């Protein structure tokens, strides 16, 4: 593989990882607080739709982001209402949200725009476009590191950089703040939090709101940064990949980022390898790369590479009085 190709793949890796990073961090917040969240996919899709519609209507990507986050938070609150307040089954609630997202975005999209569930293409000014760092053009011609700077470091949209900032921020919140301490505690033993005089319910709601915000960024990225409009079902299973990454990273922020980058890389590599044949093997079917993140996660879950210990109170509604 030539350097040039490597740079190209790495650039692609970054772009493909961003929605995963946001979403997996979102899952990190809820699951660390003891609420399973397989509705990440749906939240991402909802917010992608909302962001695209708002950006189209207002012409402003920032209002798009705001709409994406707002809608995603609202959906998170529904999940919270079902699984925290009503102590419903968290998995079922997540499944329901995924159904709702896939259906409602398509129904509304088609009803409003008649474009097969898509929103109309956005003008460049209504999108988050690439930010070119100083001297990128000059450095592009200056060997590997120059190209790395120009194509991998520079040349992404603001949400990309936000995603990479979100990782240390999430770490800091979880491990260095009162909120983070309580959040991690409530996912392990909600009784401890309750007897410490802290509301388990409100704490878990706040965790799901955090997740909503992050999923909102992920969806916004999909529809108005990475592409120029919403497309039906455009989350395409990324929520589940993010979930896989979250497990793969054993519910820790920095490994989450690395896992997302790995899965993004697999995707980018699959694109790159399309139609190319590997000496001795021949053409590798793209499906292998598509399945790899899931296979790896199962292998991890099987305990062959370390043990993924989920938050102890995860998935169990907090019941004080039977």
């Amino acid at each position: 593989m030539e350097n040039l190709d490597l740079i190209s793949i790495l650039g692609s890796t970054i772009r493909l990882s961003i929605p995963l990073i946001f979403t997996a961090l979102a899952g990190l917040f809820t699951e660390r607080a003891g609420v399973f969240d397989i509705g990440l996919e749906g939240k991402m899709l909802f917010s992608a739709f909302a962001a695209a519609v708002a950006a189209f209507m207002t012409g402003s990507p920032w209002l798009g982001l705001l709409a994406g986050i707002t809608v995603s938070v609202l959906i998170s609150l529904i999940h919270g209402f079902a699984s925290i307040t009503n102590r419903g089954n968290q998995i079922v609630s997540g499944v329901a949200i995924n159904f709702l997202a896939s259906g409602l975005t398509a129904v509304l999209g088609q009803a409003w725009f008649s474009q097969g569930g898509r929103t109309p293409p956005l003008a460049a000014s209504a999108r988050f476009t690439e930010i070119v760092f100083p001297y990128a053009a000059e450095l592009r011609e200056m060997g590997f590191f120059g190209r790395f700077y120009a194509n991998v470091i520079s040349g992404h949209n603001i949400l990309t950089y936000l995603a990479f900032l979100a990782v240390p921020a999430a770490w800091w919140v979880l491990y260095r703040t009162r909120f983070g301490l309580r959040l991690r505690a409530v996912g392990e033993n909600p009784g401890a939090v309750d007897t410490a005089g802290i509301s388990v319910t409100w704490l878990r709601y706040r965790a799901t709101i955090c997740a909503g915000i992050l999923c909102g960024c992920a969806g916004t990225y999909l529809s108005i940064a990475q592409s120029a409009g919403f497309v039906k079902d455009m989350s395409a299973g990324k929520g589940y990949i993010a979930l896989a990454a979250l497990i793969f990273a054993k519910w820790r922020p920095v490994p989450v980022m690395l896992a997302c980058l790995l899965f993004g890389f697999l995707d980018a590599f699959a694109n790159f390898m399309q139609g190319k044949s590997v000496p001795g093997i021949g053409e590798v079917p793209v499906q292998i790369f598509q399945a790899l993140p899931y296979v790896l996660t199962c292998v991890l879950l099987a305990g062959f590479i370390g043990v993924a210990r989920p938050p102890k109170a995860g998935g169990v509604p907090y019941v004080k009085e039977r």
Partner: protein
Amino acid sequence: MSTASVPLPNWITYGLMPFLNLVVAFLISGVVVWFIGENPLEAVKLLLQGALGNGEGIGFTLYYATNFIFTGLSVAVAYHAGLFNIGSEGQAYVGGLGAALASLALDHYVPWYVTMPFAVIGAAIFGAAWALIPAWLQAKRGSHIVITTIMFNFIGAAMMVYLLVHVLIVPGKMAPETRVFLEGGQLPKLDWLIALFGGRLGAAPFNVSFLIALVMCVAVWLLIWRTKLGYEIRTLGASSTAAVYAGIPYVKTVIITMLISGGLAGMMALNPVLGASARLQVEFVGGAGFVGIAVSLMGRSHPLGIVLAAVLFGVLYQGGDALSFDMPKITRDMIVVIQGLVILFAGALEYLFRPAIVRVWQRFGKA
């Protein structure tokens, strides 16, 4: 005082509460329809007419219901053992391979009723095989079956696409699908059954799989409530510690339950693959596995409830098709919305009205 442990009579728990939840789900769906600018009542009328208005509509409704009976049973059997099988979708997909291989191998030589048992077994074995690894991971390594079955849905999809695109595709054809099965590899339609009630089946692909589904309902009922294995499955689901105490082997029971669950999901493939399109296509499951979750929840994991819930969803699917045809502004995705709402209210929010009902019951019901 908490109301959660106040006992309520069965007709409330199994009748009134699901009914109320459904009503809310439909009311909200109505709001969505209204929001789009169509008349919800008109929509309901079109939906019911399309689903039940004539023999063909009924045929389609029951065709869809057949899918959901299989996947609903699949989810329910696992649920009785306390296992949440989200993988019915993938198991059905892979099950399609087993069914299709049987038809491809036999359709030249034998009539359908000879092929059928092989196809049933093939579908069940392939579906069960796809449930085996998640089951094993759960039983032996304690990996959460919800997560592993989700992963296996995706792995299964990738595998099936690969097989269809690279192996099973008919050379020179555009679509990634197998050749069309001859009559010996198809399941015949049940025109006579609809005719019995004075309808005409028309083009609806309502076929023998429906009868297989009903047989499976009886079989599952027998299994769960009339066999020792079923007793063990229920014990495991209700109390895993009591199961250990009773000497019920955890690993074996989990694996057998999941094999049965996967096998039922796999059999769902008979309906679309052998009964309707007479070939194996990509993504033929079309979310039926997930609908099975809703069906099982609504049907309270009982075969009778599952049949009723499956027919309800069949009505939604077929009626939704008819609706989107007559009200082009409402696309078929509306069904997905309704499903989502039903799952939300009948599943995750199933206790939403319980406190209120308990209060009413305590005041007026007990007298």
